[in-house]
């Protein structure tokens, strides 16, 4: 965020009347950043998340795993406001954000990458990335941040390519790049490495760790690739049938026979 920004020249569109993640990173990390309280989402007669109490601390990197259909994506969509909760509340930084519009939540520092890549297909990679960046950076700084974000997404050289022409994996990379470019306090990633090759997986794991450590961004990452999960997180939450099923250190969870039965399968 440009340090010249004052209250008056804040883009009425943009968010960012907030502390930066970097600022937070230097501060106390133990405070709860996000907290859900009895969160319920129903679709028709079907309950996708059932009374979920879930929390993430500032600067924490948490993975969310669980069987297909467990309600992981639903939970993230509730946090971003894409879905309206049927019941329960969401607190963020101590404020009740349950009834806020999605864009209002983003401006408080929550950012998300969708499970299915949804980049702006007809716009160039640069235009895609500039959109989040322009909210808080101008001129030379903006240019630098855009270039940086593209570089970090591994798409240097593709600046003028229309995003719709990137391969599936490249679009995933771009998505993460865009979500991270917002410099959020909490970044939600829904299956960030699905479809990526091994090299890219490692690059993204590295990227997430760096953002977390250097900028203090908190993460909720959904991923089915357990190796990947193990490489970035210490703590995981297992969701099952819409409920929190287990929570704990990754090694513990991996060896939990119940988790193996419902999720991991195979040889333990």
């Amino acid at each position, binding site marked *: 965020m440009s340090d010249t920004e004052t209250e008056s020249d804040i883009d009425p569109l943009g968010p960012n009347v907030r502390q930066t993640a970097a600022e937070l990173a230097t501060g106390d990390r133990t405070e709860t950043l996000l907290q859900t309280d009895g969160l319920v989402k129903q679709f028709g007669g079907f309950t996708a998340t059932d009374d979920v109490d879930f929390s993430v601390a500032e600067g924490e990197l948490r993975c969310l795993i669980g069987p297909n259909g467990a309600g992981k994506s639903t939970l993230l969509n509730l946090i971003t406001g894409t879905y309206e909760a049927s019941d329960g509340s969401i607190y963020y930084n101590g404020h009740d954000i349950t009834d806020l519009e999605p864009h209002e939540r983003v401006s408080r520092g929550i950012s998300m990458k969708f499970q299915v890549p949804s980049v702006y297909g007809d716009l160039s990679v640069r235009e895609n990335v500039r959109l989040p960046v322009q909210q808080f950076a101008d001129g030379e700084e903006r240019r630098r941040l855009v270039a940086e974000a593209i570089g970090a997404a591994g798409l240097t050289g593709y600046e003028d390519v229309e995003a719709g022409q990137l391969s599936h994996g490249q679009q995933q990379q771009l998505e993460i790049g865009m979500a991270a470019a*917002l410099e959020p306090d909490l970044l939600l990633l829904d299956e960030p490495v699905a479809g990526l090759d091994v090299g890219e997986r490692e690059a993204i794991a590295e990227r997430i760790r760096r953002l977390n450590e250097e900028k203090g961004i908190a993460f909720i990452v959904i991923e089915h690739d357990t190796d990947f999960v193990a490489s970035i997180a210490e703590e995981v939450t297992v969701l099952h049938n819409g409920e929190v099923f287990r929570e704990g250190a990754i090694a513990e969870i991996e060896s939990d026979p119940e988790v193996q039965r419902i999720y991991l399968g195979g040889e333990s």
Partner: protein
Amino acid sequence: MARNSANGEANRSLPGRLRSRFEGPNTIGESRGFWGGFAAAVAALAVYPAFGDSSQLSLFMVLALLGLSLSVVWGYSGVLSFGQVVFFGIGAYTFGVVSINFATPGGITAAVVAGIVGGGLSAAILGYFMFYGGVRDVYVTIITLVSTIVLHTFMAQTAGSEWAIGEAALGGFNGMPDIPLLTLGVGGLSYQFIYNPFPMRVIGIGAFEISPFYYLVLVLLVGTYLALRALVNSDYGRVMVAVREDEDRTEMFGYNVTRVKFVVFTLGGALAGLSGVLYAARNVYIDPTVFSLLFATLPVIWVSIGGRKSLLGAVVATLAIEYLRISMAGELALVLLGTLLLVTILVLPSGLVPWLHEQIVATRLGPGEAGGADTPDAPSEVSD
């Protein structure tokens, strides 16, 4: 091929910096050649009255403002409004009603403002009703279409003497024929723009009369075009384009998509209102045909044919299509016009002007290079 993203703007010349406000990935034409051509075209329009029927051209330019209003709303923000003529017509009728009731220079000037505000306000109301009510996509198109039809039906039956606002009878299908002549200013400091030919004598061309209205419209059109170019290449313009491309995604970047649509829609309404004011002023007349289905379809046609994502396209196509519509004569005129529209949209899906631009760029760069940078000396990163 000076790609000056690296050396930034610090060392750009002043005209370069000025130009950069009007340039960016959202508009075509950034080369020196383009701006030269643009200046030449404006100059040609300025001297045109010496040679041709400027009265008709002024009509087309008035309509081009209407075309631009749709280009911003739809082409750049993705809201396909079938109702630009609603705001156009409300602007025109408001101008008529106010100016008939206050037929002094000051009153007529206020009527112009009232017309623009009327267009903007009606768009704001309809926009609020739709966007804050969660209406999206094709439903917006149809609501605006239905609004057009409602007004058409309504205005067409205001023939009875009970339908009058002060001195001004709405007149139903007859329209309002008694609109005062457009005069801007107050009291002694005013100038009449309509039916006030300005005698000119130019050596080499001879004596002729020019219409001040024509120049008023020309200035407004060029000014509006440049202002909109600046808008769509600004940060706000980038957000408009993002909304067009994917509303949900844009919301997830923290933009208030609903408000962007609302604001742009209102702006488009005001611009359509201005166009309507000028239309009523030029014709000294307004009738409900401006709300007819045919007239409502025209802006969509101009903008599609010209190139939806091109402001210049909207202007060029409006002028061209309206010229054809008036001048084609004979039994086959409508058949030919229909064929022309049909073939153009099928063969040039991105529109006439973007296509022409591609051709020009391709020939200038020569084969092989065409795929590279869009135009010479285009800054690849334009921002403030």
